[in-house]
């Protein structure tokens, strides 16, 4: 026993370092091995396509004259292209209206469901969440049919009162038509996230608040909302990114909305049209990257502005 410890103690410094180095290397390898599968997928399916799209966006292909390297010409074109700019302006406007509407509805629902614990509350929770479980395409088609003046129910309902039905697929109301579809689809999902965050709040805080004389309204605004602020920030970022990349709903509804939704309605639709219908992959990639830039700026600005306020939001 003693001799063994002596032997160990007698080991020279470089020797231990060598062994440690070996262990370190092995740990290193193991680490890479664990990260490897993710790394390969990440590189192959995210970084490589992005790099390729960026590469494509620096070229221009003409019917006469072939492909040439143009550096940022496509980006200059995008930011002076009325189609791209009007699409970008639309999604920004749409975000400014739709995100607050969705968040307020989701928050109100979550707060109500959090303080009511009857069987009905559980049923409502499921029902409010249900639209999110319906694929966007089917949701959009369904709403398209509901809006239809030819065979939707609106004409009949308004007809009962002798009024003409509003045309939610017409150019005046399409904004609200889409707003309704998006809110219907996503508010339930955000509600679940907020509800889950509320469930994580320590109930003793409410008790303490009540002892200090706080009412239900005060508990909600002074305790619950500040405590779930991180979840609120999260869904705001989610919805901001999602809305700026608006594609599914307008793309589906354009077949039902007579000429109201053009192929350049949102930047994503415009990129799709350029790439897959006009074979202009270069410009399509440039639009996608330009949109990515806009998303990045918007999200960064949002996080910057909410950074300090997080404590009392």
């Amino acid at each position, binding site marked *: 026993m003693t001799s063994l410890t002596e032997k160990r103690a007698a080991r020279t410094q470089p020797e231990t370092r060598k062994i440690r180095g070996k262990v370190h290397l092995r740990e290193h390898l193991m680490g890479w091995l664990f990260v490897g599968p993710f790394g390969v997928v990440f590189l192959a399916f995210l970084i490589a396509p992005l790099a390729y799209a960026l590469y494509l966006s620096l070229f221009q292909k003409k019917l006469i004259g072939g492909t040439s390297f143009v550096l940022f010409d496509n980006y200059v074109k995008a930011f002076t292209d009325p189609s791209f700019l009007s699409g970008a302006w639309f999604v920004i406007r749409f975000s400014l209206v739709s995100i607050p509407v969705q968040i307020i509805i989701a928050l109100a629902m979550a707060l109500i469901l959090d303080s009511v614990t009857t069987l009905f509350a559980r049923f409502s929770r499921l029902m409010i969440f249900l639209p999110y479980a319906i694929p966007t395409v089917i949701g959009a088609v369904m709403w398209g049919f509901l809006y239809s003046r030819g*065979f939707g129910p609106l004409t009949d309902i308004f007809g009962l009162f002798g009024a003409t039905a509003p045309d939610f697929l017409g150019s005046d109301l399409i904004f609200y038509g889409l707003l309704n579809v998006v809110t219907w689809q996503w508010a339930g999902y955000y509600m679940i996230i907020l509800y889950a965050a509320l469930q994580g709040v320590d109930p003793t805080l409410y008790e303490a608040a009540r002892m200090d004389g706080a009412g239900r309204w005060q508990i909600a605004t002074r305790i619950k909302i500040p405590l779930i602020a991180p979840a609120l920030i999260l869904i705001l970022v989610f919805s901001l990114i999602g809305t700026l990349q608006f594609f599914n709903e307008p793309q589906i509804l354009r077949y039902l909305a007579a*000429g109201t939704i*053009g192929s350049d309605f949102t930047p994503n639709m415009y990129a799709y049209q350029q790439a897959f219908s006009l074979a202009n992959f270069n410009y399509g990639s440039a639009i996608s990257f330009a949109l990515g830039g806009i998303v990045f700026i918007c999200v960064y600005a949002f996080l910057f502005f909410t950074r300090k306020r997080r404590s009392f939001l």
Partner: protein
Amino acid sequence: MKRRRILATVAMLAVGSGLVACSSDEGGSDASNCTNTITKKDLPVVTMWGWYPNTQLVVDNFNKLNNEVQVCWTNVGQGGDEYDKFQTAISAGTGAPDVIMVEADRIPTFQIQGALVDIKQYGFDAVKANYSEGAWKDVSVGDAVYGVPVDGGPMGMIYRKDIFDKYKITPPKTWAEYEQAAQKVKDAGGPLFGDFGANVPAVLMALQIQKGAKPFTSDPAQPNAIGVKLNDQASKDVLDYWGGLAKKGLVGTQNQFTPEYISGVINGNYATYISAAWAPGYLTGAGVGKGQDTGKFAVAPLPQWDSANPVQVNWGGSAFSVTKQAKKPELAAKVAYGLYADKESLTDGWTNQIIFPLNLTALKDPAFVDLKVAFFGGQQANKEVYVPAADAYQGVQYAPFGQYYLDAMEKQVSEVIKGSVTGSQAADRLQEDVAKYAKEQGFTVQ
């Protein structure tokens, strides 16, 4: 134990052979995804994309009659959907079929990208006499032939007899009369007279050509130069005319081929439908003219601008082209020449009004000419309207960037419908837009 091992081996082999089967395929043009069943398995296979409602029958007929090559057919979507997929395959350099159904107006678009094969060298002389010169012209660029015509779309005015009778009007012979009749029906509280849809720019192009517009001109000797004239007086007049009808509430502004529009047609919301010879087959398939509506429709020649000098125009119509990605272009050309050219397929096509055949064996067939069309309540539509229209059709010069032109036109027509621009302004904007695009694409615009 032993049994289990045998089972495992069998399962492994099955999976293995499945993998082999997968790996021997190539993208979208493989022969194992045929919609049809190929019975003569040892023959070489040519892949084909198409969307005729009776393609299944046409392909089976071809395969039955042919002992040299078999067709493997896939329906990848109708019109624009198919073109988008083909366009992507062209850009990717792989994934296109050997033979593809295309509308004649798209041929220059794909031809200029080098995506189609000139089939003149593969037995053109043998079938040349089966089609009129005009039919060949629509599928040619310069001297080269890039498709085999199948059907045409001579245009006429489909109308509801019951509505016309109710409001005591006769089929208008000129566009001026068309507007008067529309006004008369509206004043009497009747339905809309027609439809000005943004998503059918090809119809408006045809109607502009009817008034004398020549949207695109080119000279085979100068392939890099193109004449773009989309805002001449004739083009403006036609857009102003339809924009005016819409503004006065005489015609609807629905997108066509949508459930909304079709339900309107079934409801009798539209007294006329300015359309082509293939429309009855399409409308029947969508459920129009059935039950108590049987035989309510009739067809009259397209209204004219100048009844003394009638001009006939065309909407749609298609051909089979051989793609550059075909590994055996000669075999593919045989398919293109032979598909939908046998009597049985053609007869099925025209009796169901799926196609207006351009193959002269059908076009000159008295049974076809004299056919009493059930959709039109027994009217001899071919003899009275479509055959004369097809005979008088002169052919059109299409653009090598047809997709962009039609998209841009759709956008401008939407603006006219919204009322934000007049027809003339739309034509000016369209000219500016398309000429700019042509320049960007490297053309010299004249």
